[in-house]
C-alpha cells in the first residue's frame, strides 16, 4: 500500500534516471573511441571503467537527492500526514517503507548502469569483468545511500521535501569545500565519504589500472552505518512529533 504509493510518486523520476543511466553506460565506449582512439584497447577500457565509476556516482547522487526529498517528509508539506498517520501502522513502518521503496529504485539504477556499462565495455574492449572491478562500485553505492539518507532525514527535520532537497544540496556542495579548506589551511582531516575511495579522481584518471584496487573496509562500514542511521534518526524524530 504505502510502498505502492511511494513508487507511484517516484516512478517518473526513476524511469528518467534509468534512461539516462543506461544511455550513458551504453554510449560510454562510443565517446571513448571518439575522444581517445589513439590509446591501446586495454588502457581505453581502464579509463572508461573509471569514468563509469564516477559518472554513476554523480548520477546516482543526483537521483539520491531527488528521491530523498520524496517520502514521508512530503506528507507534512502536503498536509497529508494526518491521513497517513491515522492508518493502523507504526511510524517505523511508514519511514522504512518509504526508504525501502527508494532504495530498491537506487539498486535497480545502480545494477542497470553497472550491468549495461560493464557488459558493453567488456564486449567492446575484450576485457574480462573481475569481482575486484565490480567492487569498485561499492563506495559509489554507499555514497548514494548516504546522500539519500541525509536528504530523507533533512526533509523530515524540515517537514518538507523541498527544504530537505535544498539543505542536502548545500551539504553536498559545501562539505567537500570545508574538508579541503581544513586540510589545506590547518591540516585537519575530517572524516569524509571520500575516505571510501582508495584513490582520488585525478590519480585514477592518470592511472586507471588502479580502479581494481579494493576499497578500504572500515570507511565503507562507517559510512554505510551513517547512511542507515539517517532513516533511523528520522523515525525517532517522527515518533516524537505531534501533528
Amino acid at each position, binding site marked *: 500500500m504505502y510502498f*505502492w504509493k511511494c513508487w507511484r510518486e517516484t516512478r517518473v523520476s526513476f524511469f528518467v534516471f534509468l534512461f539516462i543511466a543506461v544511455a550513458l553506460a551504453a554510449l560510454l565506449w562510443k565517446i571513448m573511441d571518439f575522444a581517445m582512439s589513439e590509446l591501446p584497447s586495454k588502457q581505453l577500457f581502464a579509463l572508461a571503467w573509471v569514468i563509469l565509476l564516477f559518472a554513476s556516482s554523480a548520477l546516482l547522487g543526483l537521483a539520491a537527492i531527488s528521491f530523498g526529498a520524496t517520502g514521508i517528509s512530503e506528507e507534512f508539506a502536503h498536509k497529508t500526514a494526518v491521513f497517513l498517520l491515522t492508518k493502523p501502522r507504526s511510524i517505523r513502518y511508514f519511514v522504512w517503507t518509504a526508504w525501502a521503496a527508494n532504495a530498491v529504485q537506487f539498486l535497480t539504477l545502480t545494477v542497470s548502469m553497472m550491468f549495461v556499462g560493464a557488459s558493453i565495455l567488456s564486449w567492446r574492449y575484450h576485457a574480462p569483468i573481475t569481482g575486484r572491478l565490480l567492487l569498485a562500485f561499492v563506495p559509489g553505492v554507499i555514497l548514494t545511500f548516504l546522500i539519500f539518507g541525509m536528504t530523507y532525514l533533512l526533509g523530515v527535520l524540515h517537514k518538507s521535501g523541498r527544504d530537505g532537497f535544498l539543505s542536502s544540496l548545500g551539504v553536498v556542495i559545501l562539505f567537500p569545500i570545508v574538508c579541503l579548506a581544513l586540510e589545506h589551511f590547518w591540516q585537519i582531516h575530517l572524516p569524509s565519504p571520500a575516505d571510501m575511495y582508495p584513490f582520488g579522481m585525478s590519480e585514477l584518471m592518470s592511472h586507471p589500472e588502479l580502479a581494481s584496487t579494493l576499497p578500504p573496509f572500515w570507511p565503507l562500514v562507517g559510512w554505510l552505518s551513517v547512511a542507515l542511521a539517517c532513516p533511523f534518526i528520522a523515525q525517532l524524530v517522527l515518533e516524537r512529533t*505531534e*501533528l
Partner: protein
Amino acid sequence: MNELAIETKDLAKTYAGIRAVSGINLTVPRGSIYGFLGRNGAGKTTTIKMLLGLVRPTAGSACVLGMDARGEHIAILQRTAFVSEKKALYPSMTPSELVRFSRGFYPTWSDSAVEKYARLFEIPMKQRFEKLSNGNQTKVWLLLALCQGADLLILDEPTTALDPITVDQLMHVLAEDAPERGSTIFFSSHQLEEVERIAEYAGFIDHGKLLMEARLDDIKSEFRVITAAGSSLPAQASSQVLSVDVEENFYRYVVTKDAEGFAARLSQNGATVTSIAPLGLREIFLQLVRKEQ
C-alpha cells in the same frame, strides 16, 4: 467489555504554556451518536488528536474502545475511522486510487460500501483529488471513513464545504447506517442544527473546558426560557438563572433546573408568567458559553 467507546479522565494538553484542553472528562457510550460542540479553537480537534494518539496529553488519560490511547493507538486505529478537519489527501490520486491505497490497511473494508456511497454522494471516482471541488474532497474523506467497517467513527467537522443536500444525505447515513452496525459516532461540529438532528449525546467544550455533557434530551429538558411581565422582578443571574434580559416591564429568563418552581416564585412576586418554553440547542450552547465567560 467496557460499555464506553470513549472515556477520558482529566485529559489535558498545554502548548507553550497555553492550555488547549483543560482536564476534560468525556464519556461516550458504545453505539451512540455523540456531538462534540464548540467554537473554533475551543479544543475539539486537540481532544480528537489525543484520542487518536496523534498528540500526547500533558496530563490525564484517554481510553478508546477499551484501549489506552497512548499505548495501544495502532489497535485503536485499526477499529476507528477518522475524518480530519483539514481535508487534504494525495493530490495526484483519484478517489479510486485512494480507495485502493486505503483498502489494504483495514481487514473490515467493504467494497460494496464504496460503490454504495460513491453513488450516493455522486463522487467522480476517476478524477484527480486536486481537481475535485472542496465539497467533493470532503465526500472522499467521508467515503474512505464509512467503508472501513469501523467500530468507531471520529469525524472532525465532517460537513465542512458540503452543500445542504449532501449534508442531509450524510446525516441520514450517520443516523441510519452506522448505528445499524453498532458503530459509535463521535463528531465535532459548530453546526448545532446538525448535532441536534442526529445526536443522542452532546458535550459542550469552550476554552478547553467541558462545560456540559449529557443526553441531548436531558440537556434540552433542563433548560427553559421563561417570559414574564411585572415590575421589580429579580434581574440578576444566579446558579439557576443563566441570563436575564429586561425590556421595560418584560423579563426573559433562561433557567436551568426546576423552571416551574422558578416561575411559581415569580408569580408569587406579582409577575405574570406568559410562557415557559424549551430552548434550542443553539441557545443552550450560547448561554453556557456566556455564563462561562
